[in-house]
């Protein structure tokens, strides 16, 4: 899919809705002999690759499974420390699967708050009068589009750099929010959106936006 995720952030920077496209993340599995030719380190309850890139394994990738068994944070499936396992030559050869770590709910909340601050600073540091915050942020792998309503709600869409039609999608999401969240008598303002109709209509809007296709590289 060319649309990766959608975030709705309230005016205080809290995440009130989030959706991911669940595209399968690239994973690399490889059998290693002693000693390991990758440097691993513990970071935020995950074991990440700190140095060494080969066969699809990249710096920042996390250990996902050892010998086919999923790891649990920094522990193996049978309760041992992941970092100690490769240090023992008796455990070799060992098969390890690496992949980009999936964002946890807490991390998504943190990233939404971080974007809230970046949005405001982008406006403060503007060399022009009357500038808004960040409306589009571009990297080589994705583009982040942001639409802030007059009431301070931010609709954020992460899409492929070449995906077109995001502006109309953002306004459509605003319509859906107005119709199915604000008019819901059980919805408290600034609280997470748990409305089934909002979910359904958002997914329909995303399907329409997917068909808008892509245009040439760049821009």
């Amino acid at each position: 899919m060319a649309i990766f995720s959608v975030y709705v952030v309230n005016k205080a920077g809290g995440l009130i809705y989030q959706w991911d496209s669940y595209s399968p993340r690239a994973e690399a599995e490889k059998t290693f002999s002693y000693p390991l030719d990758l440097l691993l380190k513990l970071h935020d309850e995950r074991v990440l690759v700190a140095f060494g890139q080969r066969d699809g394994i990249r710096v920042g990738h996390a250990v996902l499974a050892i010998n086919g068994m999923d790891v649990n944070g920094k522990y193996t499936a049978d309760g041992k420390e992941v970092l100690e396992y490769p240090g023992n030559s008796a455990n070799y050869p060992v098969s390890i699967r690496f992949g980009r770590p999936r964002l946890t709910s807490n991390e998504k909340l943190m990233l939404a708050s971080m974007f809230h601050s970046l949005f405001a600073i982008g406006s403060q540091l503007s060399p022009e009068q009357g500038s808004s915050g960040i409306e589009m942020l571009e990297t080589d792998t994705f583009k982040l589009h942001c639409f802030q309503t007059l009431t301070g709600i931010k609709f954020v869409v992460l899409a492929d750099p070449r995906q077109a039609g995001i502006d109309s999608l953002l306004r459509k999401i605003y319509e859906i929010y107005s119709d199915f969240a604000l008019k819901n008598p059980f919805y408290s303002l600034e609280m997470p959106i748990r409305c089934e109709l909002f979910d359904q209509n958002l997914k329909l809007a995303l399907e329409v936006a997917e068909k808008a296709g892509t245009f040439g590289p760049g821009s």
Partner: protein
Amino acid sequence: MTVHNLYLFDRNGVCLHYSEWHRKKQAGIPKEEEYKLMYGMLFSIRSFVSKMSPLDMKDGFLSFQTSRYKLHYYETPTGIKVVMNTDLGVGPIRDVLHHIYSALYVEFVVKNPLCPLGQTVQSELFRSRLDSYVRSLPFFSARAG
């Protein structure tokens, strides 16, 4: 189209150089605080995009735009950051920022034994060369400013 201003940071966050051409609004804080705020914002954006990206990135953060300006970003492997604010109509200028680094900063600052690294650039030659280069860019025009 126009160029508003340019920042040059080293890997430790020191603002090596700042130039201004068509800036209409100041940030309302002292210049030193503005440099720190800008560097902090760029640092946060870099960690933000590395976590957000669904795929492995190569170049990382390229640019962002608001309703009134566009910020372009280029970072060298040694951690030198070239940041340029322009009008919205300017397309990707990664090669321009790379040229500022390789043909101006490296030639007139790194190769200058009187310019200590890690401190603000005092070279008048670098300043004048940078100014004339930016003014010669096709998207630099005072009309839109």
